[in-house]
């Protein structure tokens, strides 16, 4: 009796594990998104980036996606069909922009990528208190 109960519990555990694995495999985003360019370096004069970025994504199952970002010019954009795999965006920004790709139907997050905005490392200067030729 004890052995039967043990076997039953083991079978339930295996079944649960199997379904969990299957579910996890289904949820695991076999999806990737890339961004080009990934970095933008601002100059001292132009302290923001005026550029066009291209997002490309791959998903192992046909999925219609939406792209969201924390940039005011693109809060949300959705593809028309699962065959769309890229998006080109012109933007002006002075800070990092985070892009997130979600499933249009389930709103499940599939992948994300970030545009890094980095200011140019300007050499620090300070007042000079003596004329360079003060030794005369």
């Amino acid at each position: 009796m004890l052995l039967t109960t043990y076997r039953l519990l083991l079978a339930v555990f295996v079944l649960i594990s199997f379904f969990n694995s299957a579910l996890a495999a289904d949820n695991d985003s076999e999806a990737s998104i890339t961004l080009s360019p990934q970095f933008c370096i601002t100059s001292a004069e132009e302290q923001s980036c005026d550029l066009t970025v291209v997002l490309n994504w791959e998903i192992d199952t046909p999925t219609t996606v939406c792209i969201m970002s924390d940039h005011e010019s693109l809060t949300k954009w959705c593809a028309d069909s699962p065959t769309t795999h890229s998006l080109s965006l012109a933007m002006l920004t002075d800070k990092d922009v985070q892009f997130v790709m979600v499933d249009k139907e389930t709103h499940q997050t599939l992948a994300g990528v970030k545009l890094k905005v980095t200011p140019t490392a300007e050499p620090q200067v300070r007042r000079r208190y003596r004329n360079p030729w003060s030794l005369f």
Partner: protein
Amino acid sequence: MKKLAVLLLTALILPFASLANDAAMCDENSDCITVGRWDLGIALGYGVKSNPVKNYEDIPIYLAPTIAYYGDKWFFDNGNLGYTLAEQEKFTINLTTSFSADSAYFYRWDPSNIFIAGTNQLNVGATPVARTVRTFGVEAEPVINDLEDRNFTLLGGVEAFIYTRAGIINLSVAHDLFDVHSGMEAKLKWLYSIAIAQWKFELAAVADWKSEDVVNYYYGVRPSENVYWSEKFQAASATNLGLELTTQYVINEHWELIFLARYSELADEIVASPLVNEKNTSTFFVGAAYRF
């Protein structure tokens, strides 16, 4: 009278200076330096630094360096070491070292004469002069034996820069750090810089005060030099007045042409010394400079 002229000239220039932009900002009108990087340069050309000390020759100038390094607070600039206590838009307060220009007249390798060629040693070929005698109230020109050492010393003190639309006002007070003469010096300097295209001009008017100890050490007469004058000449604190013009013509990142003129009217208390036979000193230099 000449001092009055210097002051009048300063007063004439000031109203024009008030039209200028704030020279304190780091722009083309003001010299700034990159933090954490050595600024090295050398100037080659010809110039002369006059020597007011009797029987000591003028000092020819063929080359001179500029050496500076600024950290966030510490700085080293042409021999002066400093620490910035406060740096604001309108003013700066530094602790700083400096050295007196007076020892340079007596000592060839004084830091003020660094890299300056030639000699300012006693001119042994000078015309002999009669010994000092007091005969029927008549004073002959004194004979001064070989001078004892007038040593170099570093001064340490505090300085302030006040940035105004009329230029920069520089105040400093410093005391002898090595007890060579135990004296004090103070300076009031007004600087005005302007850049026009590739030209940079810096005009300065300066009043240099030296305590009695400083004047006595450098310009007083020691008994071994002349017994009579060691008692006769009584040193007193003194204020020299001067004008300085530094002109640079920037050719490119590394090369520039420079023209410098310095004029200082010696205080009556210094001119009264039997060691001194000029009422003023001047320096000029024309040359090319390379900045590394």
